[in-house]
């Protein structure tokens, strides 16, 4: 048993002294998690505002003059990069990873707390460098979130001077921060689980975060490599990615570089990145569904294997983002095949979520609403992914709004619904307060229906041939007039969804002070984080003695048990057995 790293002790580890050590330079994983989450949500709100500004231009062209073409592209770029890297990755791994791993595994803290603290501060530095690009001459880069060369460093692109350099520097810094955090998450899961917490007793949230961290540790170096090489192309004039090129009538001093090389490197990171975001969401949503349906997760082992399979396969599908860049047809065939194969473990997970709900005692509380909403949006985004995984279907659709609808459904809306569900689920434990359930439900319905109102019509626009990345469509003859009406309607829906975030923020902030006091385990959940002696858990999490685990994380509605849940740290009653095999011979 990996009960070696942090054992029972009388005094808590790395005792904080005073306000600064407790809340600023804190080495406590819970404080670091909250720091990560607050910064990620803050920067995510900026990205949300940027998307609203873009939608204003698209829905009502030329009505809002401050959104000029250059700014539009800058907004696109910053919105995409912030949402994917600085919000979702940071929030799932830095936020939930930090908070949940030690608590769910029964540890006192991460195994390298000092490095964990550094991870947050370096992440904050990355965010500050990124945001600084708004204030430099030329503004932030407008190269698109994929930062493709050669245009990313050519003078005609907005932010091609300092903007792109700051973006690349920020990404490199972020990767350093992530690596410090990631080493902690992996090592803590492997080495600091409490007695009895075998790998196959870990909640799926931990499995998802664990695998996503491994993906991140192996995939982020690809982004690091491309960031370094592009920085050198942009500053020293090397030709790693830059081909011989003329710009604005002038031959530039580049020669022979390969823009395709950048695309390979970028997507070697970029596709696993989808799963770096998705796997924690898969894990967390499994726990939310099981807890609020009062039923054990269907097919636990298969869920674990699917997480591992998806993680492995995610490294061999990257070039499906590059069909339009051109490639050997056999490569296209290979990557289309691997892309479709990855649908198998993913579909297994979806079936298992639905089967978990089947005949469950479903409590439609706010976290559960978000979890069920996720199943809808994820199936939707997953199915359109099957379209785009095929080369011949992808080619005509690739540069249209179909793709915008697809990827927002699958890796925008779906993970964000899980983020909201998870915040509502663990808020009582984190803050010790309950929130307003009615406001939470308003937030859910506005978000869920609103995002459908935004992204469903985009698929239709894409099939009509509406191109993405365009600042304005103008009087394009092949597009019917209804396209403009749909665009206006999408914008209104987007503004409503953005407004619903205010309800969420209000609910969270006001409930911090005036919410009713939360009981230690309001959802009657089985996992260890709900069994702490204090709510919110104190430094060291467990008091003098670490918990000991006796069962898996999903003993809900065990026949014959007095309650409809049995926490993981409750010893096995020989008469009762464990889980659904009650009464069978073990």
């Amino acid at each position, binding site marked *: 048993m990996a009960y070696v790293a942090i054992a029972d002790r009388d005094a808590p580890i790395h005792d904080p002294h005073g306000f600064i050590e407790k809340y600023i330079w804190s080495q406590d994983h819970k404080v670091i998690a909250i720091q990560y989450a607050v910064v990620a949500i803050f920067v995510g709100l900026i990205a949300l505002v940027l998307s609203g500004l873009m939608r204003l231009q698209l829905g009502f062209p030329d009505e809002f003059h401050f959104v000029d073409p250059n700014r539009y592209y800058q907004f696109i770029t910053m919105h995409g990069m912030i949402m994917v890297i600085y919000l979702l990755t940071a929030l799932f791994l830095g936020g939930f990873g930090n908070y949940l791993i030690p608590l769910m595994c029964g540890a006192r803290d991460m195994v390298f707390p000092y490095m964990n603290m550094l991870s947050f501060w370096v992440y904050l530095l990355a965010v500050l460098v990124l945001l600084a690009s708004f204030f430099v001459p030329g503004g932030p880069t407008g190269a698109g979130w994929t930062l493709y060369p050669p245009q990313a460093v050519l003078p005609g692109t907005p932010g091609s001077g300092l903007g792109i350099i700051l973006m690349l520097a920020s990404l490199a810094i972020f990767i350093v921060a992530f690596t410090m955090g990631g*080493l902690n998450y992996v090592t803590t899961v492997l080495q600091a689980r409490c007695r009895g917490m075998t*790998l196959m*007793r870990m909640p799926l949230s931990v499995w998802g975060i664990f695998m996503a961290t491994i993906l991140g540790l192996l995939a982020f170096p*690809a982004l690091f490599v491309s960031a370094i090489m592009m920085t050198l192309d942009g500053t020293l004039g090397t030709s790693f990615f830059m081909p011989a090129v003329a710009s604005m009538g002038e031959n530039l001093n580049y020669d022979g570089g390969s823009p*395709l*090389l950048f695309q*390979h490197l970028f997507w070697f990171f970029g596709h696993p990145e989808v799963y770096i975001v998705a796997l924690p969401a898969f894990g967390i949503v499994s726990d939310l569904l099981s807890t609020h349906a009062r039923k054990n997760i269907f097919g636990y082992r298969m869920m674990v294997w699917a997480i591992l399979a998806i993680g492995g396969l995610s490294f061999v599908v990257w070039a499906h983002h590059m069909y339009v860049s051109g490639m050997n047809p056999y490569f296209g065939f290979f990557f289309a095949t691997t892309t479709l194969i990855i649908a198998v473990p993913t579909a297994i997970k979806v079936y298992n979520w639905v089967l978990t709900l089947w005949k469950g005692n479903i409590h439609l509380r706010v976290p559960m609403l978000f979890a069920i909403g996720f199943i809808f949006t994820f199936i939707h985004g997953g199915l359109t992914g099957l379209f785009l995984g095929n080369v011949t279907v992808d080619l005509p659709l690739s540069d249209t709004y179909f793709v915008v609808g697809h990827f927002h459904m699958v890796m925008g809306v779906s993970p964000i619904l899980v983020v909201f569900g998870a915040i509502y689920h663990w808020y009582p434990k984190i803050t010790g307060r309950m929130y307003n359930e009615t406001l939470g439900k308003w937030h859910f319905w506005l978000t869920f229906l609103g995002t459908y109102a935004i992204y469903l019509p985009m698929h239709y626009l894409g099939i009509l041939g509406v191109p993405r990345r365009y600042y304005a469509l103008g009087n394009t003859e092949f597009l019917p007039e209804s396209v403009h009406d749909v665009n206006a309607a999408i914008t209104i829906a987007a503004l409503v969804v953005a407004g619903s975030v205010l309800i969420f923020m209000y609910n969270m902030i006001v409930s911090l002070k005036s919410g009713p006091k939360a009981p230690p385990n309001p959802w009657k959940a089985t996992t260890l984080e709900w069994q702490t002696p204090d709510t919110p858990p104190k430094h060291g999490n467990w008091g003098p003695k670490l918990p000991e685990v006796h069962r898996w994380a999903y003993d809900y509605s065990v026949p014959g048990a007095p309650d409809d849940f049995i926490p993981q740290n409750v010893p096995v009653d020989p008469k009762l057995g464990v*889980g659904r095999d009650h009464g069978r011979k073990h």
Partner: protein
Amino acid sequence: MSNTAIFIALLTGVVVWFVVASRLTAKPWRGETKGDVGAIPLPAARIGLWAFMAVVTSLFSLFVSAYAMRMHHGLGWCHLTIPNLLWYNSLVLLGASVAMQLASSLAGRGRRATARTAMLAGGVLTIGFLVGQILAWQAIGPSLYFIQGSPAIAFFYVLTTLHGLHLIGGLYVLGRTMGRFNAGAELLDLRQSLSLCATYWHFLLLVWLAVFGVLLFL
């Protein structure tokens, strides 16, 4: 691409090993507990170091992939003329690695003074290697003209810089260990640090040899 494929094969191997080793076939709903990795009889710091070395392996593998792809798919490639100095540098780094191993072994046997000498030798040889690399830069031509004109030279600078930075990181840890040594820390406490340093030095020696091999033969 072939390098990437090798990397992926390695990765798959690791995943398969993990699945087999950790016996992810337990049925936890039946109270089975076999699905553990078993006791990994290693301290957390060592696991952390191995995870970090996996990240660095990924980083350099991708750089080597990029090197090969730039060579084959880009234009204007001309091979680097390898200065003979790099052979001597490699020997110096090998010496540093051996010295670190000695320091670790001697500390394990309780020989404090000789362990300290070996550790010092490891540090000095590593600094010697770094100085040698800078001299190799001089030999290749450290002007912007060469860096802009030859992607092979630009790669050489990037790869050696990154490798050097990793060594400097190692030297920082070694310096801290030396500080504890001088402050009179128990040899028992220092053994683990020295052992980790030795592992890291061996790893960086392998990385350098791989990079050197790519520069020589690819």
